[in-house]
Structures are given as structure tokens and as C-alpha cells.
């Protein structure tokens, strides 16, 4: 990818710049699409149609119109807020979320950096997100904001444990943290002759690992049934209460980027990343990006589907689920996967 860019771009720093904003372009287009999709999914699940007017065909440009409206809005900072921290928080939130995309292999030809600590880096850098949410909550000088921020921090710190343990159980099988190498290991059709060589088909415990990972990633990206940080019925809007205009939009973008990030990590760890499900059919760098994003979008769709299906958990139920069920289960699963690796 870098050589390809160097072939028609004149200067070195320009190549680095273009190389590093490719995921940003993907995220921006994806966020516009995903917010529209969320509204359509919500509508159809509730037996409505969702947005139908803007842009003609099924309201396809509704989010674009919303974006234009949001950019024009006044940037309001509450009088008693901590101005500097209040203004900075959304940028740190999005920077933390975007920085994690460095280690995601979008296709066999594009990965931001081939660091050998890939997944570990993603887990570490997203922890900046909870700090930035505390920053937003505290700087807003609002009870709802701070309560939401506290919940977020507690939730993120707790659910990091099952996420890391399930990722670790996949790492036992692959033996590498680099997501590109993890994907390359899953190329081909090995299982029963027709199933793709994906890690989810590796052993029955991998299915359990995926379910645990998916639940924990729902909580990490603050989606229903774990969206306590911004539960509208009790906390107004959580840490976003005082935000308006594009700063609020950045928080929204961060949430959707986080969903995509965790879905892509899930797709890479369990569903073969950029590998085609049909062996060598429709394979290659460009098709790879297509498959990767398709798998990611499917998981994002499941997240939306769950949002309009399940009710929200209470705070104590949330902590119970994490500490009493998910963490013990993920540790048992880790040991079982290690034993499976040892025996077979």
C-alpha cells in the first residue's frame, strides 16, 4: 500500500499523511451509513419505516442533513464548566478510538502498522477513552454528567477483564498478537473440507469465547443493554448532557467508531478477517477490504438488533453479570482452550 501511494504522490510526509487517514475516511463514511442504518433497523423492529423523506430513496441522506445541521449549531459551553477540559474531552475520546485502528488489518495490503503487539495495543489505547469520558463528565459541572462518567469508568474497567481474557484465549491458539498474522493463519478451507479455516470453527470452546467477547465488547462500546453511561430515562444524557453541536457529534462518532473497532477485532479474531469465506474465490487485497468491512458491518448490525430487542440492565445487574458470570466463565474457557491446544 505504501509503495502504491509513493508511486504517484510526490513527497514522503504526504505519503505518510494519506496512508494514515485512510481509516478516518472509512470511519466517516461508515458512521454516516451506520446512523442511518440504526434508524432504519430501529424503525423496522418497531414496525415503523424510519426516515423516509430526506434524499428520496428511503431517506438515505438523513444523516448527511443532520451532520450539516450539527456543524452549523452554536458551540455552547456551560458558564460554570471547566472550559479547557470541556472543550478537549471529545477530541481525546475520538483520538483514543481512532488510534486503535492502527493495528487493524483492513485487507492483506493495508494495515496501519505491523507492530507485533497488535491486540494488546488496541486494548491499552482504548483505555484512554474512559479517561476522556471522566474528563467530559467532570468538566461539564453537572450531576448527571458526572454520574454517567463514573458509571462509564466503572463499567469499562470491569468489562476490560473478560475482554482481555477472551482475547488471550484466542492468542493461545494463534501464538501471535499481530492481527495480520492472526488473519493469515485463517486462510484456506481446512475443517471438514468445506468450512473456512476460521478460528471460530477451531474448537467448540471458541464459540463460547466469541459469545463472551461479543457481550463484553457490547459493554465496552456502551451499547444497549449496557448503555448505562447515557441512559436517557435516569441520567438525561449521561456525560453528553451538556454537549451540543459538533462536540456532541464527535462523541457520537466515537461511539460508532468504537462499535466498528470492536466488531473488526471480533471479525479478525474469530471470523478470518479479510479472508474470503469461499476459499480463494473472490480473494485479493481489494476483495479483502470488502470482506473485512462486511464482516464488521454484520457484527455492527447484530449490535443494533440487540439494542432494540433487550431492555437495559440495572447498575448492580451489570456488575453482577461481569464479575459473577463473565469473568469466571472466561477464565474456565481459557483453561479449556489451553487444554484443547495441549491435547490436539
Amino acid at each position, binding site marked *: 500500500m505504501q509503495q502504491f501511494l509513493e508511486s504517484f504522490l510526490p513527497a514522503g*510526509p504526504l505519503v505518510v499523511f494519506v496512508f494514515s487517514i485512510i481509516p478516518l475516511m472509512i470511519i466517516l463514511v461508515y458512521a454516516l451509513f451506520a446512523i442511518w442504518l440504526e434508524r432504519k433497523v430501529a424503525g423496522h423492529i418497531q414496525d415503523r419505516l424510519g426516515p423516509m423523506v430526506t434524499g428520496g430513496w428511503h431517506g438515505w441522506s438523513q444523516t448527511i442533513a443532520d451532520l450539516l445541521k450539527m456543524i452549523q449549531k452554536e458551540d455552547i459551553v456551560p458558564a460554570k464548566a471547566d472550559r479547557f477540559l470541556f472543550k478537549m474531552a471529545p477530541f481525546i475520546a475520538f483520538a483514543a478510538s481512532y488510534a486503535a485502528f492502527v493495528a487493524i488489518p483492513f485487507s492483506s495490503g493495508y494495515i496501519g502498522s505491523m507492530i507485533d503487539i497488535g491486540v*494488546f495495543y488496541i486494548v*491499552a489505547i482504548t483505555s484512554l477513552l474512559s479517561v476522556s469520558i*471522566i474528563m467530559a463528565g467532570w468538566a461539564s459541572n453537572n450531576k448527571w454528567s458526572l454520574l454517567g462518567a463514573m458509571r462509564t469508568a466503572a463499567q469499562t474497567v470491569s468489562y476490560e477483564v473478560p475482554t482481555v481474557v477472551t482475547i488471550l484465549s484466542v492468542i493461545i491458539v494463534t501464538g501471535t498478537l499481530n492481527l495480520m498474522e492472526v488473519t493469515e493463519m485463517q486462510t484456506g478451507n481446512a475443517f471438514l473440507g468445506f468450512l473456512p479455516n476460521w478460528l471460530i470453527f477451531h474448537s467448540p470452546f471458541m464459540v463460547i469465547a466469541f459469545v463472551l467477547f461479543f457481550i463484553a465488547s457490547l459493554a465496552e462500546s456502551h451499547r444497549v443493554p449496557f448503555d448505562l453511561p447515557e441512559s436517557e430515562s435516569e441520567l438525561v444524557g449521561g456525560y453528553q448532557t451538556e454537549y451540543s453541536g459538533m462536540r456532541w457529534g464527535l462523541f457520537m462518532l466515537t461511539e460508532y467508531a468504537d462499535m466498528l473497532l470492536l466488531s473488526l477485532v471480533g471479525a479478525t479474531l474469530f471470523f478470518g478477517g479479510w479472508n474470503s469465506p469461499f476459499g480463494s474465490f473472490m480473494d485479493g487485497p481489494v476483495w479483502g477490504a470488502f470482506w473485512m468491512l462486511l464482516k464488521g458491518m454484520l457484527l455492527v448490525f447484530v449490535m443494533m438488533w440487540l439494542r432494540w430487542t433487550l431492555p437495559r440492565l440495572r447498575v448492580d445487574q451489570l456488575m453482577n453479570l461481569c464479575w459473577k458470570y463473565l469473568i469466571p466463565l472466561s477464565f474456565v474457557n481459557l483453561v479449556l482452550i489451553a487444554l484443547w491446544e495441549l491435547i490436539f
Partner: protein
Amino acid sequence: MDLSAVAFYLFSILIIGSAAIMVFSKNIVHSAFALMFTLAGLAAFYALLYAGFVAVTQLLVYVGGILVLILFGVMLTTRGYFEKVRTRTVNLLPSTIFAGIIGMLLIAVFVTTKWAMNPMEDGEVTMTGLGELLLTDFMLPFQVAGVLLLLAIIGAVLMAARSHPPQQKAGSNPQNAGRSPSGEPPES
């Protein structure tokens, strides 16, 4: 100057600036957030030195763990959430002398030491090598550190459990007795 030198100086400014804010700020929450930039900048330094694992561990442990704990501690121990906690300057003279001596000592060490400059070796796989070393040559320290952390966790659980007085278990507290039919310990 190449890109990594530019990054080095940018992160140096970030680290020194945020460390100064952390020390001199009167608002303790500002100090805590300034600490985040210092720690993250140090992680960037490790990354510039090709110590990726150390950089990421720095982020995970200090920014993701300890800093969140500090923020929780600061916010939960104050009387009101938004009461601005003011710090004040005490022991100005002894601390200045102490800091001056340590600073001079560090500068003296930095100037007098002969620094060995090794060229970077290509193709070093840090992660695999580190894992192998941890499970062979440094097995004992690794295990001892693990046992130490386990002891800390057990101790923390014990301290948290002790805050419930024992008579609550016998059901002598009528307000909490009916609250937990599933046998969960009532929240204090």
C-alpha cells in the same frame, strides 16, 4: 530533522509542560488530568525507542488503571463532587533544597556517565523473546510478582468484606434482612 526527531521534541514539550501543570496547578483534578498527558507522553517515548511492549504496558497500567483509580479517589473522597479541591504549598524551603540536591545529582550522573551507543538491530521480535525469557530465565521473579499481586487482591477483598459488621449476617439488622432473598450480601 527526521520525523522521529520531530516527534521526540514534540513529546518532550508535552511531557515537561504537563508535568509542570501537574505540580503547580492548585486544582487537584487538573493535576490528575495533566498526569495523564505525562504518562501518555512517556509511553510515546518508549514507542520511539522501539520498546513497544513497555509503551503499551505503560498505557494500560498507568493511564488505564492507576490514573482512573486516582480520578475515582479524588472525586469520591471529596465532600461534594464539584467542590474544588485546592492544594496549597507547604514546607517550601526543605522541599526546594531536597529537589535541588536530587536535580544536581541527576545532572552530575548524566554528565559523567559514558553512554554506550548501540546501533539498532533489525528484525528484533520483542514480544516472543520477552515471553520466552519470562518463562525461562526470569521464571522466579515472574511467579513472585504474580503471587504478590494475588496477595494484594485477596487483601483488598478481605478489607472490603470486613466493612460489613458480623452481626449483619445473623439477620439482626431488620432493614437489610429482607433485602437479599438470594443470599447476596446487602450493600452498605
